[in-house]
């Protein structure tokens, strides 16, 4: 099998052979009213639009469509699970069809044959609309042109076509006459039989082919995504590592790649779209590592969603890390997050040169003020502890 190689990592799509006729049911999803038409469409393996069109058409015959809809509504169940249709159920369906035809003939017998032009018009319009607008699959014509779709046997197609034409002709002759219902009944019956014989298996095969094709496309897309990701990230980093002689730089590239790969493998949020404070902080730390070539040890305890207040803290922590990277002269720093019941602390620690908080040069004061104002605006507090030669700690705290 062609895509067996990726079967191990990519979820297996339901094999096409499992698609089959289902027990009549009401569909719970993708429905217009109660899912009756959708359920019938699933059962017969035809497109939803056609079944809905049939109901619309039948509505013009004294609202029979509505009555049938209600009967189906009462008689069927909400779909719980897929189940193959067993012979008993097929014969029940056949019986239902016969009963419907009997009802029609009864109505014809008492002289209540409806306005044929109205029926034809409604039928043509609704079926036409359904054929043109159903977005889930290409029309029969497209499938006929598409060489990938298996051909229906010519005999069967011809037989169905003949029956179809005969039915339409007979139906036309019956219009305008209020009696001769047997003729009309025969016409309807032959038409239906013709359509079923000619197109039933073909429509079904078309649908199963489409789902198989869709499954393969999904697999190919996933594989392409994996390949693209590995190329953009891992391979690029490996290429960079081969070119560099500086062990420090090598280590940082490797660390950065490792954390990115972990994020990707374990399904944490994509870059820049972090929804947890810990992820956002890790991303900020990764950027600092990359920009300044200084490793940041990130340790997190507990977690909290990213919202306006916590976003401000992440931004301030990012500033503090940049600050430490630029001025402290260290070769590594640490970032610590702790979320407790009533508070969230983010602490950036470096063990570098430190500074005298009272004798801060103007430019550094500016940066620490920007950290401070950012956090205080959202109701948090900032503590900056530093001593010459002892490193610096920036403690950001937010009450929760």
């Amino acid at each position, binding site marked *: 099998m062609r895509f067996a190689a990726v079967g191990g990592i990519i979820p297996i799509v339901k094999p096409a052979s499992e698609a089959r006729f289902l027990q009549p049911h009401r569909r719970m999803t993708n429905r217009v009213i109660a899912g009756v038409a959708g359920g019938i469409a699933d059962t017969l393996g035809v497109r939803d639009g056609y079944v809905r069109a049939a109901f619309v058409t039948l509505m013009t015959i004294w609202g029979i469509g509505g009555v049938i809809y209600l009967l189906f509504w009462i008689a069927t169940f909400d779909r719980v699970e897929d189940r193959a249709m067993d012979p008993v159920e097929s014969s029940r369906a056949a019986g239902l069809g016969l009963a419907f035809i009997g009802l029609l003939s009864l109505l014809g017998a008492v002289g209540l044959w409806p306005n044929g032009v109205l029926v034809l018009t409604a039928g043509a319009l609704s079926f036409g609309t359904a054929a043109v607008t159903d977005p889930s699959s290409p029309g029969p014509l497209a499938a006929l042109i598409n060489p990938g779709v298996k051909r229906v046997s010519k005999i069967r197609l011809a037989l169905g076509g003949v029956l179809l034409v005969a039915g339409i002709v007979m139906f036309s002759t019956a219009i305008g006459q209020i009696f001769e219902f047997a003729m009309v009944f025969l016409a309807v019956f032959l038409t239906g039989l013709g359509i079923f014989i000619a197109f039933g298996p073909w429509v079904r095969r078309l649908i199963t082919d489409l789902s198989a094709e869709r499954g393969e496309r999904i697999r190919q897309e996933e594989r392409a995504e994996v390949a693209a990701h590995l190329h953009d990230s891992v391979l690029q980093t490996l290429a960079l590592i081969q070119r560099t002689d500086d062990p420090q730089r090598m*280590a940082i590239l490797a*660390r950065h790649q490792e954390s990115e790969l972990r994020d990707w493998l*374990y*399904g*944490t949020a994509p870059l820049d779209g972090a929804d947890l404070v810990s992820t956002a902080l890790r991303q900020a730390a990764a950027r600092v590592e990359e920009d300044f070539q200084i490793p940041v*040890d990130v*340790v*997190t*305890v*507990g977690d909290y969603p990213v919202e306006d207040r916590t976003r401000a803290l992440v931004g301030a922590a990012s500033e503090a890390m940049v600050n430490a990277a630029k001025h402290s002269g260290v070769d*590594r*720093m*640490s970032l*610590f997050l*702790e979320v*407790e019941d009533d508070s969230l602390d983010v*602490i950036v*620690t470096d*063990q570098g040169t430190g500074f005298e908080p009272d004798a801060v040069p103007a430019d550094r004061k500016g940066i620490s003020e920007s950290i401070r104002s950012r956090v205080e605006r959202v109701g948090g507090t900032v503590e900056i502890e530093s001593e010459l030669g002892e490193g610096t*700690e920036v403690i950001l705290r937010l009450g929760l």
Partner: protein
Amino acid sequence: MSIKVYLVDDHRLFLSGVKAELAEEFRIVGSAYDVDTAIEEIRGYRPDVVLIDVHMPDGGGIAVVEGVAETNPDVKFLALSVSDQAEDVIAMIRAGARGYVTKTIEPEDLSDAIRRIHAGDAVFSPRLAGFVLDAFAGAIPTDDDPELDQLTSREKDVLRLIARGFAYKQVARKLNISIKTVETHVSSALRKLQLSNRHELARWASKRRIV
């Protein structure tokens, strides 16, 4: 007499690198890259400290720690791993390892950690300290031993500083306590982790599948 060290790692290149780094200061009595050889040789050589990788085929480091603990409970284990998955780390500690450090550790820090383990102390990397704080953060006291499952606030202070990258000496200075006291707090946090309710930890670990 120098400390007898045994190395277990399925990554041979890494193994030879560590061997070279430690050979000056310690007596490397042997090494193995699979679980069965490791258990057999550790029983035979009786090293003081075993440096053990977490992820290996056939049960990994946990299998070795548990296999040796039955017969030689006095052999001390220091987990050394690239893994930063909380379950792996906590599982090693619960199996009986006295400490856990990542493979990015500086050689002199690793030597220091081995000496510390040999002296009977626990060795916490910043990340392990974070895991332990996290594990106890949501812990509800259990009926059988409510005291045992909680960290004291002093132990938490110590672990927080370790998590922030401070060495024991710096932690001691910041909290105005002696290094010996820091060691005591760390050891007792380790003991609590090893004895704490298995169910709570399992729930915690599964909750933090993504670290």
